[in-house]
């Protein structure tokens, strides 16, 4: 397994002016994988990316690239390239010259440079824009130039720092698909930083959820969504109902004043736990036979479904349903055992 990791971070700590940003972070990134660092702003995801790029020297810990320690290797000697958040295109150069920049530094012959730049511009659908100035391009086009400028150097790893943040929703969706396509056809590793959970789930092979300089969970998008390790991940990835519960015994949990059958085991007897239920897993049923009952407090139409808040004896449940119930209606709710996710209480409440 060791050889497959292209980038490994071991016990990385980073401070900014004495404030700890990362404290003992460990992370392995497998070759040819699309990895997303996901977390709220200030969680250390960009710092992690910049550590890999060489723009930050960690206070302690080691950075390995292809098995070699590269702590002291300056950015220009690393086989990684970065797509910066605000593109960082060189305004005094045109599109062609921007993309050619890295190749010129490698002192490649002119015909090879031209060929590779053309190939890249084709890949990002910007053929014919060679002689445009940067200020003549739209945000989406600038984004593509930034990607081409990084990829033309054939890096082993491409680092992307919230590259789609400045684009509108439609363009962002298009670029997500295109980025994924590029990553697959070029067969290189992408490390992608974002705070947008949907973006992370759409594109990634592996999602790394971060908060407060720590990695909370590493897994496939399916793992992260369906089996969040703790309440923070559950809340951050999609919407969730999170309530306090007590584990009675294996496969039996109490919350909202009732015992429920579940599929989790291995918790201590009477251990206090977080119970997480996705809004789409709560089903509105006849109030007479339902395990949970409450009064509909509000209804919002969301297009695909209605989002209802149901007040059940002080617990407010968020329910997604395709059928609409009028506010004030007394309704019942049920949930299937495998849709009840039991999690250890987090040591520090975020």
């Amino acid at each position, binding site marked *: 397994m060791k050889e497959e990791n292209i980038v490994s971070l071991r016990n990385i700590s980073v401070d900014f002016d004495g404030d700890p940003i990362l404290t003992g972070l460990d992370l392995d990134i497998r070759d040819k994988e699309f990895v997303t660092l996901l977390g709220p702003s200030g969680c250390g995801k960009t710092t992690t990316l910049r550590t890999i790029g060489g723009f930050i020297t960690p206070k302690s810990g080691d950075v390995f690239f292809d098995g070699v320690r590269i702590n002291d290797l300056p950015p220009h000697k690393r086989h990684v390239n970065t797509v910066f958040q605000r593109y960082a295109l060189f305004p005094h150069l045109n599109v062609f010259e921007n993309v050619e920049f890295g190749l010129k530094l490698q002192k490649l012959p002119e015909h090879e440079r031209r060929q590779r730049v053309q190939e890249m511009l084709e890949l990002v659908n910007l053929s014919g824009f060679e002689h445009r100035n940067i200020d003549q391009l739209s945000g989406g086009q600038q984004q593509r130039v930034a990607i081409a400028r*990084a990829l033309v150097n054939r890096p082993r790893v491409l680092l992307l720092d919230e590259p789609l943040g400045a684009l509108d929703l439609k363009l962002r969706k298009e670029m997500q698909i295109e980025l994924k396509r590029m990553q697959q056809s070029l067969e290189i590793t992408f490390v992608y930083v974002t705070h947008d959970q949907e973006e992370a789930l759409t594109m990634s092979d592996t999602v790394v959820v971060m908060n407060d300089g720590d990695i909370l969970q590493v897994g496939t998008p399916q793992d992260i969504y369906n089996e969040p390790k703790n309440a923070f991940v559950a809340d951050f990835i999609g919407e969730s109902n999170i309530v306090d519960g007590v584990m009675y015994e294996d496969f039996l949990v109490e919350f909202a004043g009732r015992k429920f059958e579940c599929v989790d085991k291995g918790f201590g007897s009477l251990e206090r736990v977080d119970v997480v239920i996705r809004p789409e897993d709560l089903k509105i049923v006849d109030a007479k036979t339902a395990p949970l009952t409450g009064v509909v407090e509000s209804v919002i139409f969301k297009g695909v479904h209605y989002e209802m808040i149901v007040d059940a004896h002080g617990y407010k449940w968020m329910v997604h349903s395709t059928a609409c119930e009028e506010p004030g209606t007394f309704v019942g709710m049920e949930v299937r055992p495998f849709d009840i996710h039991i999690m250890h209480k987090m040591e520090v409440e975020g």
Partner: protein
Amino acid sequence: MKWLSKSYVGVVMTFLYAPIIVLIVFSFNQSKSRGAWTGFTLDWYRQLFHNETILQSLMNTLVIAVVSSVIATLLGTLAAIGIVNMKRWQRNLVMNITYMPIINPEIVVGVSLMLLFVWIKSMGVAVEFGFVTLVLAHITFNVPYVILNVMPKLRQMDTSLYEAAQDLGCNPRQAFFKVVVPEILPGIISGFLMSFTYSLDDFIISYFVSGPTSQTLPITIYSMTRRKVSPEINALSAIIFVVVLVVLLAVNIHDAHKERESRMKARARA
């Protein structure tokens, strides 16, 4: 109301330019006295170009302006880069120190520089008042102007440009010359031009630090007027005015052209 505002502008222009027009007209006057027009001549211009003192000090002025503004531009640009990367309080402190020579009356700067050079001389270091002291003085008062022109460009620059250059394979020196310098070049150029003009222009500070061997044009003109105002000075002033006018026109036409170009680009995009 339109005629009122137009004539107001006319009056302002007259006050501003009447003296210069009189000067230029009288530079072509045959009579040596300033009061009366006696006929057209180019004699004063001819004499001017045979006046060794004036030509020599013109030469001095140009050489000092070029040398001091080039050195000031280098020093000022490097200083600005250093200052931008300082911590906030350090930056504020250094910027206030930088403003000081600009705010100070020139006479204070002039006298203090003179005293400094005298003191250095008394320490046994061979400084002769002349070319070297003039260049040093001009660098001193020009550096702040360069810093003030380059600083905003540096602060406007996206810091990730420098990182992007390194990311694409530049070592720090290459990143500086290939990316940072082109970005801040407009600031460097305007800093240089300001230094150059201030250096050409300077009288007060130069007066205190010049020596008998090396005088600048303003000092020479001043000493000529103390004896007797020769129409040669009118001729010289007229030439200086025309040169400045031509340079200004060229800059303005260039700017207008650039603006039109960028407006057309913007329209093409939309």
